């Protein structure tokens, strides 16, 4: 068993866990997005680790990392756009209130 790989995967798992906690526990759209960022960051670590320790010759792995990074950025752009629009109309980005106002 390759210890470096395991360490990296552990990091990825921990980031995923923290992100998941964030997504579930935060009441706020913006904070929630930070959780998603962390989950994606966990995925990034795993991808890089897989590339490096399993398939260092295949650059599709690196390409995949670029795509995940793109997804992170786009998720933020769209997420913040939604947050801005919501804040403008409702004066809040709390998820609870969003539900409340709908019902």
């Amino acid at each position, binding site marked *: 068993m390759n210890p470096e790989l395991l360490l990296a995967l552990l990091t990825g798992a921990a980031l995923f866990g923290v992100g998941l906690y964030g997504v579930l526990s935060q009441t706020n759209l913006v904070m929630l997005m930070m959780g998603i960022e962390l989950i994606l960051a966990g995925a990034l670590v795993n991808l890089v680790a897989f590339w490096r320790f399993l398939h260092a010759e295949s650059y599709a792995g690196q390409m995949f990392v670029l795509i995940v990074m793109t997804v992170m950025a786009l998720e933020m752009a769209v997420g913040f756009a939604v947050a801005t629009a919501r804040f*403008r109309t*409702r*004066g*809040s980005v*709390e998820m*609870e*209130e969003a539900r409340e*106002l709908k019902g």
Partner: protein
Amino acid sequence: MGQWLLRATARDLCALVIPGPDVAAAYGLELGAAGLRLAATPRHANVLLIVGELPAALADAALVSYAQMMRPRGCLLLGETAPAGLPIGAQAGLSQSGLLNGLGQLRAWFCRHGYQQQVETFCAPLLMPDSASDGEGDDAGESDGRHQPDHGEGDNGRHGSHGSHGSHGSHGSHGSHGSHGSHENHENHENHENHENHEGHEGHEGHEGHEGHEGHGGMSFMSMVNVTKDLPRSPDGLPMDWIEVPFGPLFPGLPGGLSLTLTLDGDSVAGVKAETIPAACLRPPEGGFASGDLLRAVSALDPLTPVSYRLLALRALAALGATVPMPSARRCVALLERERVASHLGWLALLGCQTGFGWLQQRARQLQLACLRGAATDLRVLDKALARLERQVRRNRLLRARLSGLGVMAQQASLRGPVARACAMPIDARTQDPAYGELAFEPLCREGADAWQRLCLRLDELRQSVALVAATRSQEHSDANPFPPGTPSEAYAGEATAVVETPRGEARLHLTASGGRVTAVKLQPPSRALLGQLPHLLRQQELGDALTCVCSLDLSPWGSAS
């Protein structure tokens, strides 16, 4: 080691000038030549340079600034009277030689007192209420980077709204909040039914409204919707927190003494409050002013344009029927125009500082000082230098882009001076003066009424004024005081008004006198009408643009509200 360091420190003097570098320049002080660097904030200064006599409002500012300076620090007073409570390190006369002399004294003072063990703690009564609310020096010490978790418990009721306790939260000493009544909500919070209860905390709205900034009060969980519901909206529809930020009286980009309080929405200006320096000295004493006292009071009113105001007082007294030591009409023109040149150049230097245009700031300042030195400079040399400056400024595309379309003034009857003339209104008190009539004076005008046009107009006027001075062919005085000596006679009564076109516009002085004493003084300074325009002019401007706008009006804060 300590001595050596102190000597090095004493050679690097960085000054905060009170009331401001513009006033220092108007007194003819060359700060750069004396080896001083100018600080933008008291934080970076080690010398507090007090120029002339300070009115009460500025004396307070001096105390606050001194308190905010870092030791070793010293205070250099150029003039006679020091603000109460300020420890003065060195004192000298109000002139360039005085400045040099004073700086020498101050350097010696630094070397003697810089690292003294027994120094008194500086404290002014003015600083006390604030220090109480923040706890005694809790952050100033570098002791261990943490706050004492239990400070100020007794003040909770009074200061909770400041969020001063909240600050401890960010340092991990959450325990200190235990005593705060509203904190219970925290514990219950895991259970999220509590959310629906937030209306139950209405009690807190009270202490919120008190601050006007809902964002700070919240110890309890409050619905964001409730918080933002009543907030004013920015033009883009977002309800944000607005803060009031003081700009002045010692702000580097504004005339010294002018205090603006801007309500900032992000970096847009949402509201303006302007304060000027009240002219307390114009209130007549028991039994009225003697004419000599009046003359002194009026000419000391505005350190930026002492000559115009002195002339104004002289004219007003003459109109009352007193015999006054008045210079010849031609000489008056020369004096006024020379002051106008100096004042406009001082304004250019301020504009340079405000817009970060280093070259303009330094060049204009140099020329201003040269102009103030009077006889020392040949008019033709000055004219040539001005022509060069004008060419450089007009050619500067970026400056033009920065100023164009900024602060467009509508034509109004109340406007005076260059601001009015840049609105295509040929209003100029000089047209009524026969001495100007002899010199075929015509007021210059420009259309467009924005900051760029005001700049261009002042550049035009600079050249015009130099030409007028040249046309008077009056003898230049090398004397510090260009007015003939003597005091006006005391035999007059009745009412009279005099008008002088100061560099900022028309100033009007109305005197009521009986039995050789002036019993009532009414001054209409040139900047008053403009101050009222500010809220309208700055609304929703970006901060930098707003300050440039204010700067382009060339307001004088002195003697504005009598």
